[in-house]
C-alpha cells in the first residue's frame, strides 16, 4: 500500500513523540521509496545496503525532521546524502587500489546503473568519456585508453577527477 506525503508527515510527527506504529509505517514506506530512488542510481547489488544505511540515517537524524514541512523532500535529502557518500567511497576505493581503476575491471561495471547521463554533461568531454567507457560500458583501462585516445595514466586521472566532480555536482544540486 502506498501512502501520500501528508500521511507520512503526520506519522513522522507522531514518531518523534515515540509512536512506534506510526514509525513503522514511516520506515516501511521509506524503504519502498528508497528502493525506487536507488534503483535508478546504483547497481542492483548495492541497493539493499544503501537502503539500510539510509534507514539508519533516518533513525539517527529523525530529530532534524520538521513536522510542519513535507516528509519526502526530507527523506530525499538524506537519500541523496547517502548516495553522494557512496560515490565518494567508490572514489576512495579507486585511490586505495594500487592498480588504479584496473581493479574494478573484474567487477560488474560499478556505475552501470547510475542515472548520470544528465550529470555527465557537466563534465569535460575527456572525463565523461573516461567514465562512460570504463564504468558504464565496462571496457578495460587499456581498451578504453585506445578508444578515446588517452594514455592509460591520463585515463585513470580523468576517471578519478570525473567521479570527484560528479559527487560534488550531486551534492550541490
Amino acid at each position: 500500500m502506498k501512502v501520500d506525503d501528508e500521511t507520512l508527515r503526520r506519522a513522522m510527527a507522531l514518531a518523534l513523540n515515540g509512536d512506534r506504529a506510526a514509525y513503522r509505517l514511516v520506515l516501511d514506506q521509506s524503504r519502498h521509496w528508497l528502493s525506487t530512488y536507488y534503483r535508478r542510481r546504483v547497481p542492483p547489488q548495492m541497493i539493499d545496503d544503501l537502503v539500510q544505511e539510509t534507514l539508519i540515517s533516518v533513525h539517527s537524524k529523525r530529530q532534524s525532521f520538521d513536522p510542519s514541512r513535507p516528509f519526502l523532500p526530507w527523506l530525499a535529502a538524506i537519500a541523496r546524502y547517502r548516495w553522494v557518500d557512496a560515490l565518494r567511497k567508490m572514489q576512495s576505493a579507486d585511490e586505495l587500489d594500487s592498480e588504479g581503476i584496473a581493479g574494478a575491471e573484474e567487477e560488474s561495471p560499478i556505475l552501470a546503473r547510475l542515472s548520470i547521463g544528465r550529470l555527465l554533461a557537466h563534465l569535460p568531454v575527456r572525463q565523461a568519456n573516461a567514465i562512460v567507457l570504463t564504468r558504464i560500458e565496462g571496457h578495460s583501462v587499456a581498451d578504453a585508453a585506445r578508444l578515446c585516445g588517452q594514455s592509460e595514466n591520463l585515463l585513470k586521472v580523468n576517471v578519478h577527477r570525473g567521479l570527484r566532480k560528479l559527487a560534488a555536482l550531486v551534492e550541490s544540486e
Partner: protein
Amino acid sequence: MPNTDELIDELTTDLRPRRRVLPWVGRGLLAAIALLTFAVLVALLGMRPDFATGQPHSVPLISALVILSAGGTVGTALTAMARPAVGAARSGWQWALAALAVLPIAAIVTAVGNAPDRALMMPPEGPPCLVIGTIASIGSIVALTWWLRRGAPTSAARASWLVGITGGAVGAVAMGLVCPIDAITHIGTWHVGIIVVAAVGSRLALPRFLRW
C-alpha cells in the same frame, strides 16, 4: 547487516521521543555567544572612545553593521541547514557575502589614491587585529559546530564554510568594537581578513566533525 525487515524491527523497538532540532535555538545560541564575545573583548581591550561615548564615527559603524548583517544572514542560512530538504532555496547567504565584498572593494579603491590610508593596509597595524579577531571567532565556531552536529547538514563542506564565515563575522564585529582605527583601508582588509581566515580554517578543520 540484518535483512531490512529485521532492521526496521530493531529501529522501531529502539524508538524514543527525541527533541527536535530547532533553527531558532541555534540562532539564539549564536546571538548569546556573540554577545559574550563582544563583552569579553570590550572588557579586555576597552571599547572605542567614539562608540563608548555614543558618538560613533561613520566608517567603523557602517562597517560593523555590514559585517553584522552579513554574519546574521549567513548564520540564518547555516542554522536552516540542520534540517535538510530537497528543493529548499537557501541562497540568501551568497547575497550577504556579495554585500560584504563592498568593504574590501572600498578599501582597495580608497588605497589607490590615498597614501596615508594605504599605509594602514600594511603591518604593523593589521596583524594584531587579525589575530585577536580570529581568536574571538573561535567560541562561535565551536558552539555552531556543536549545535549543528545534532542536525543533518547534507553538505559538510558548505556547512564548514558557513560556520567559519559566521564565526569570523562575530570576531570581526567584536574587533570593530575595540579597534581605534577608522580607515576603511584597514577595516576592509584586516577586519574582513578575520572572516576569510576563519572561513578557510573551518573549511579545512570542520568537515570531519559535520559528516554523519
